[in-house]
């Protein structure tokens, strides 16, 4: 379990990194951020990048700030940064609640938010958050910068819209209004294991009724997604067990769950039903 050889590059600026990426993407150059997913893959020699471009030394990527009613998370920001609320209001609280479900403490001290998105594991918590909240993903290359919506960014298991020569420089999450309610539920076999299913429920409390509901699921299909049928069932309703159950049943019915030797589709639907309801219940607690 020793990685294959590669050349190591440690650019000090984003521009240097982009130039390297342009020059090296042909010869399997890849970005090394937190490395908490990439390095084990290399240890198993399932990944053998020819070059690693280590962005940990780029100061400009370390920033996390609120700009224009968005939380901007730079590519160098580690999971651990979210242990404390990074911004006022429900968004900061949501992120600090979700982060504890990500792997283990030492992994969180190295792994990065943006790295999780670029890695696009279907069971990634941040990917589910990004999709549920309609995050904007900012990709840059020597050719310029573009913004990709989270919905379009994730294209399958560990597959994204990012081009080989593009660096995911930052993610922008919309600041949530003060009347936002949320609940996040995850099921994994042991603490820190990959989630078999996770559900994020978010809505605005509009005088006791649910409005602008978002139900995002992760770990169920090949990429995280919002369940519009469940959201419709919630919108306009007064929160109640009945409403939550009907949203959860809808979610369980419409998903197309992944299956593997340990997890059947039937079982994943069971989890979707339970966790969607519980996430809704948590939102009104």
């Amino acid at each position, binding site marked *: 379990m*020793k*990685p294959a050889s590669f050349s*190591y590059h440690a650019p000090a600026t984003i521009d240097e990194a982009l130039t390297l990426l342009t020059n090296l993407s042909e010869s399997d150059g890849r970005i090394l951020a937190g490395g908490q997913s990439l*390095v084990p893959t290399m240890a198993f020699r399932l990944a053998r990048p020819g070059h690693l471009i*280590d962005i940990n030394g780029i100061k400009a990527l370390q920033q996390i700030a609120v700009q224009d009613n968005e939380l901007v998370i730079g590519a160098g920001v580690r999971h651990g940064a979210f242990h404390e609320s990074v911004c006022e209001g429900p968004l900061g609280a949501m992120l600090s609640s979700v982060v504890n479900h990500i792997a*283990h403490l030492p992994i969180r001290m190295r792994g990065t938010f943006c790295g999780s998105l670029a890695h696009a594991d279907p069971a990634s918590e941040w990917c589910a958050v990004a999709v549920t909240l309609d995050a904007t993903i900012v990709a840059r290359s020597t050719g310029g910068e573009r913004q990709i919506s989270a919905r379009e960014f994730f294209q399958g298991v560990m597959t994204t819209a990012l081009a080989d020569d593009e660096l995911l420089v930052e993610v922008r999450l919309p600041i949530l209004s003060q009347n936002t309610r949320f609940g996040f539920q995850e099921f994994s076999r042991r603490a820190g294991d990959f989630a078999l299913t996770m559900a994020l429920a978010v809505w605005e409390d509009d005088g006791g009724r649910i409005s602008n509901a978002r139900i995002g699921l992760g770990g169920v299909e090949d990429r995280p997604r919002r369940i519009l049928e469940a959201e419709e069932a919630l919108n306009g309703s007064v929160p109640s067990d009945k409403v939550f159950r009907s949203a959860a049943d809808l979610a369980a019915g419409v998903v197309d769950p992944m299956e593997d030797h340990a997890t059947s589709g039937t079982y994943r639907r069971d989890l979707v039903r339970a966790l969607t309801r519980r996430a809704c219940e948590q939102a009104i607690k």
Partner: protein
Amino acid sequence: MTETHQITLNINGKDYQTSVEARRTLVDVIRDQCGQTGTHVGCEHGVCGACTILLDGEPVRACLMFGVQADGKKIRTVEGLATGDKLHPLQQAFTDHHALQCGFCTPGFLMLAAGILEKDPNINHDDLIAALSSNLCRCTGYANIITAVKVAAEKMRAG
């Protein structure tokens, strides 16, 4: 021949200058090139935590970083935990409360716990269990590890 990098690791306050291939994991460099074998290799894929060290004060998996990435960083390992002959409160509590059997996971647990308690010696029970669940032990069944860390926390709080 693959390219090598000249690096300096500061391990427990001492500088180690060495030349590494980029692909050498940090734990391999600490062990094989700096001779500090107290940090163990248990899985090489970031699950077991036997290689947990403190990097600039934070607990990290030394198998999930390359040595070259730690150039110039401050690393603390189990060898640096005691002060001379005086055991760190965690070490003392581990032996007092039988928190180790084979001892292979012990350095990782000690460094993980040190990282946790140095940041928050008042950590509550649930948060402590969640944080200590990062590492695997196959011998003890964990109960004595929890006891030992709590006893050490009390000592560390008292200064």
